[in-house]
């Protein structure tokens, strides 16, 4: 039966074409992913498992867990291991500073987003645009500006002394506080924009309905507006928290040596300390921390969203 034969061949030809189209469309993205994400990641894991010679260069092919051991233990001269919490402490500090920054951003960002979302529509675009204005200046310049503001002889301390609130200048620069303020300032738009996007979609008649049903302003905020903004709040928190964990410039400038964060420690290992395997291992540990945070979000926070 030539007819069936023909349609069979046509079918197979069509199948091959579909496959070709698929390869053509998915191909570039897949290649990007492999080349720019999986490959470097693999390389990082590989380097973290290599030995390092005395001058700091990687001895390729000599596998060792030394970098990971170093993360928790300190190797004494007699080769015995002693618990060393310094690096873990830096990780913990990064974690708490990032949480604090996320909290501060939320505290400032939510009212800002709410304010923008409640303006007349013709104003909103302008206000959203204005929140991005700080990005027009280089991150480095903005952080230097914070140094000038926060230092002992800066305008904040001078102003407070002038008003007689304090006698001695407050030590604000090179503290965790300075780092958190700097990070909040840098990442605030990442909090404002997703919350605004969620609030803008909210039907403000729900607020009237809530007032109508005996909810006070505060109850309306908790019972109606925050649930409506919840997806935006979650997105904003992720967008602030994750880059915060790995931030480099802000803690380097505003934290000095005392408030070092993971990003600075990793930078140090690849630079001055010349210990690539250890730097790679730290990078991998950071990745794990972020992954764990995300898993926590997926399994603990997300279900609440669908409550």
């Amino acid at each position: 039966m030539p007819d069936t034969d023909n349609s069979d061949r046509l079918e197979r030809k069509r199948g091959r074409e579909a496959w070709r189209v698929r390869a053509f469309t998915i191909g570039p993205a897949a290649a990007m992913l492999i080349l720019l994400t999986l490959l470097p990641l693999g390389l990082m894991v590989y380097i973290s498992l290599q030995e390092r010679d005395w001058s700091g260069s990687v001895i390729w092919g000599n596998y060792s867990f030394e970098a990971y051991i170093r993360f928790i233990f300190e190797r004494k001269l007699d080769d015995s291991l002693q618990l060393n919490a310094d690096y873990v402490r830096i990780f913990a500090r990064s974690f708490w500073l990032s949480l604090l920054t996320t909290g501060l951003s939320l505290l400032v960002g939510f009212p800002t987003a709410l304010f923008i979302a409640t303006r007349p529509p013709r104003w909103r675009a302008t206000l959203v645009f204005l929140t991005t204005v700080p990005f027009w200046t280089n991150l480095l310049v903005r952080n230097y500006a914070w140094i000038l503001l926060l230092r002992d002889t800066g305008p904040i301390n001078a102003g407070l002394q002038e008003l007689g609130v304090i006698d001695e200048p407050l030590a604000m620069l090179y503290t965790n506080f300075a780092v958190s303020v700097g990070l909040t300032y840098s990442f605030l738009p990442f909090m404002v924009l997703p919350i605004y996007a969620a609030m803008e979609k909210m039907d403000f008649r729900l607020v009237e309905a809530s007032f109508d049903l005996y909810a006070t302003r505060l109850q309306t905020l908790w019972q109606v507006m925050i649930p409506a903004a919840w997806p935006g709040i979650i997105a904003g928190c992720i967008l602030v928290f994750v880059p915060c964990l790995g931030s480099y410039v802000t803690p380097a400038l505003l934290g000095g040596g005392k408030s070092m964060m993971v990003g600075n420690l990793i930078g140090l290992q690849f630079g001055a300390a010349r210990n690539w395997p250890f730097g790679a291992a730290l990078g991998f540990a950071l990745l794990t921390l972020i992954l764990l945070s995300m898993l926590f979000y997926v399994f603990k926070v997300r279900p609440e969203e669908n409550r």
Partner: protein
Amino acid sequence: MGTDISISARNVIKDFGSFRALDDISLEIHKNEFFTLLGPSGCGKTTLLRLIAGFEVPTRGHIELSGQDITNVPPFRRPVNTVFQSYALFPHLTCAQNIGFGLARLGRGKSEIDEVVRRMLKLVKLEELASRKPHQLSGGQQQRVALARALAPAPELLLLDEPLSALDQKLRKGMQIELKRLQRETGVTFIFVTHDQEEALTMSDRIGVMSDGLLQQVGTPREIYNHPANRFVADFIGESNFLAAGVGDTAGEYTAVALDCGYRHRVPASRQLQPGDSVVAAIRPESLVLTDSGAEDSIAATVTDAIYFGTDTHCHVELDNREALVIRLQNARVDRVDLNPGSRVGVRFDPDAIQVLGD
């Protein structure tokens, strides 16, 4: 002031910038009443409702609830609940949680809330959908949840802002009956806002007709339909034919009114009608009778069109003075007269069904 007054508005004025949305509204609504505010869109009826709910504050005047001035009381302290046009159900809460929202904010105990929610779900016949979210419900079901939510805190007054406008024709008829039943069963005062005159006529105890920020007439559906206070009401409620007329002399208790088309009418004498005034005679299409041309007491006319509507036929005629009339004929009796365009007919007026209105 009797104690049977639920809500009263006293000389209420509301301005939005230079636009006057409500112009000196005074109104009293009785307890247990199904009161409808009827008017075209933009007439101010929703604004009046929002003032009663507390979402807006009047520019001038007072609003009293059971004799107490509530003009400046915020909405969350008024025993008044609203069914919103868009329902405004909380999307993150289930039906039961939506219905319990008001009671929870009033600080009622969990067992009481559960009890009331169950009763409300039964009242609106949605028991099996208690744990659904609003987006999983049809429009009619959402409507009923919105009703239950507003009724659950047992308000003194329930405000309904065009709640049926989003429903299709058939569902709407069902909900009209349902609303009426709910009002009877709960004994709550309902204030219902609509632009649909048929809805207003079938459901209300009393109707307030509004236009341009003014309350044009307040009365029972029968009063408003049979005795419209002015041309706007006669035109907006049902259909009316308007014929020009002039006021003649008064003899005894009656004043003569001569319709331009030749019909002689008389009305009880009143100070508002002075000889020589030009007035309008409003006549409902169903109160006119179509006869053969030249029949006794009839005005001669020519058929211009006849439109078939199922239960009845609307016959358009032109009187000899070129005034146009619509006559509604029940189809059972249509065949007696020739309705082809151009045929000569007679129109007979029912003197009891003519309303003489100031022009």
